[in-house]
């Protein structure tokens, strides 16, 4: 029934987002950009796209940081304009999209508090999409306990904190562990929102996207914790587990993996990721991370093949993020005169 009722509230926004998605850079745009000699050439190319108004006020020798800021500004602008027109379940859904940024910001703030930094300064570095209410009163916070009591409980992330981190842990635990625990709780909650509370087409589309995200984290956490002091039970505790994700057997093996070999063996049990793993090994200039991104882009493109669901919003913003990454990468390659690597981006469309 989604197709009959969806458009009443969200038809307009969905069409807007699809229109925005059409303005994303394509494969041949990236080929052209990779040919650029300097960032002014990049600006010339981008001026023929939707980025023109965002870039026109930048002073002449364009810098990578400035480029990145412009792109981020555009992302934030897009998000805010979509969010301001959204109705009830979609607005919640859109809020959830920003929670990862919020987690990042909170981790940053937590670090600032733990190290007694000037929080106003830290606040400037927070991602604009991850801002939340109560940030203005941050200046008075002096300890992690206070941060929790005064700020965290009012944020949408409070349940995640309650779920996985105690106030005591805030000072004791490594912030990166906290970040991953929060992310795990966030993914579970997002999954619940999409599949149980919204359901329908949205649920079906988002389930695959979120469980891919979860699987990617499981594999990445395994790979990145191989040679660290992280204990195996701690590692398993960080794994986000969602229905429809990796098999229990695979996760069990990943949890016990000691080296790359063991990870590869575990991956052999899973159809999708085995292919990604093998391709990453075969293609020299592509890391596993690139393979994941490529796969993610494929899933996001597929989300656009289905109509009347919220997945397009999620997909669009993820694609935008990828585009920012790509353009920053090209910018970096050009400024660092590593022209040969500039074409090594993961195209979105």
């Amino acid at each position, binding site marked *: 029934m989604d197709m*009959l009722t969806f458009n*009443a509230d969200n038809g307009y926004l969905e*069409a807007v987002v*699809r229109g925005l998605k*059409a303005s994303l850079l394509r494969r041949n745009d990236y080929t052209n950009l990779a040919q650029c000699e300097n960032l002014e050439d990049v600006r010339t190319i981008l001026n023929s796209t939707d980025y023109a108004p965002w870039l026109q006020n930048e002073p002449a020798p364009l810098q990578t940081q400035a480029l990145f800021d412009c792109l981020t500004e555009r992302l934030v602008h897009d998000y805010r304009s979509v969010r301001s027109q959204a109705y009830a379940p979609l607005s919640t859904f859109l809020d959830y999209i920003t929670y990862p940024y919020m987690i990042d910001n909170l981790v940053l703030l937590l670090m600032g508090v733990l190290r007694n930094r000037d929080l106003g300064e830290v606040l400037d570095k927070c991602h604009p999409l991850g801002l939340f209410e109560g940030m203005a009163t941050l200046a008075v916070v002096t300890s992690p306990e206070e941060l929790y009591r005064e700020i965290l409980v009012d944020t949408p992330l409070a349940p995640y904190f309650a779920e996985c981190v105690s106030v005591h842990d805030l000072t004791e635990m490594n912030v990166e562990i906290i970040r991953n625990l929060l992310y795990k709780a966030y993914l579970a909650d997002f999954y619940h929102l999409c599949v149980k509370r919204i359901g329908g087409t949205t649920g079906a589309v988002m389930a695959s996207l979120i469980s891919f995200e979860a699987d990617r984290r499981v594999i990445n956490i395994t790979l990145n914790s191989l040679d660290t002091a992280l204990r195996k039970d701690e590692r398993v505790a960080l794994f986000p587990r969602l229905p429809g994700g990796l098999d229990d057997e695979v996760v069990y093996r990943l949890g016990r993996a000691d080296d790359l070999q063991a990870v590869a063996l575990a991956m052999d049990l899973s159809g999708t990721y085995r292919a990604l793993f093998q391709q990453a090994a075969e293609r020299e200039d592509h890391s596993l991370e690139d393979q994941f991104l490529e796969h993610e882009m494929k899933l996001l493109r597929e989300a656009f093949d289905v*109509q009347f669901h919220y997945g397009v919003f999620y997909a669009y913003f993820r694609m935008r993020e990828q585009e920012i990454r790509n353009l920053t990468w090209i910018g970096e390659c050009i400024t660092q005169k590593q022209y040969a690597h500039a074409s090594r981006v993961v195209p979105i469309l």
Partner: protein
Amino acid sequence: MDGVVPVHCLWRWFLPDCLELFGDLFGQISPYWFAYVGVAFAIGLSVLGAAWGIFVTGSSLVGASIHAPRITSKNLVSVIFCEAVAIYGIIVAIVMATRIGYSAHAETDTVTKYGGYALFAAGLVVGLSNLFCGLSIGVTGSSCALADAQDATLFVKLLIVEIFASALGLFGVIAGIIISSKASLGGGGSNG
């Protein structure tokens, strides 16, 4: 009126002696009631279908035209198709209304009784078929607008899908007109 059925006796409807009860029930209702409810269905459901179709396709069209303004004029076709559904409904409703005339002893006149049922059926046929036709045009129109915004070459192909959808409504209209043409209440209509 003994048509009131206690809830716990509902199973009785499926027994032969219940048929008598239904016959009594419908027999007591005026054919004019059936006729006008038929007219109401015809126009009401058609407009409902058209309206639904228009908002489904319209909201997508409005949204998509922000980034691809060129699609607006072409994709107005989808809205017009939806609108046509409402027009079918009103045409059939007018045809049906002309079949209704005044009869002093309508309750006993079998022709009038027949006409009442016929118009009721025609109304339902037209109304429902136009409702679903409208929905179908709406959804395909919405997709068509979005697809056209992404790729202009798709429009003509998708338009054919829409045309098939809008043909569904016509089937109902034809059937409805044929059915209603047999009906005549109280000498309403030319052949009554």
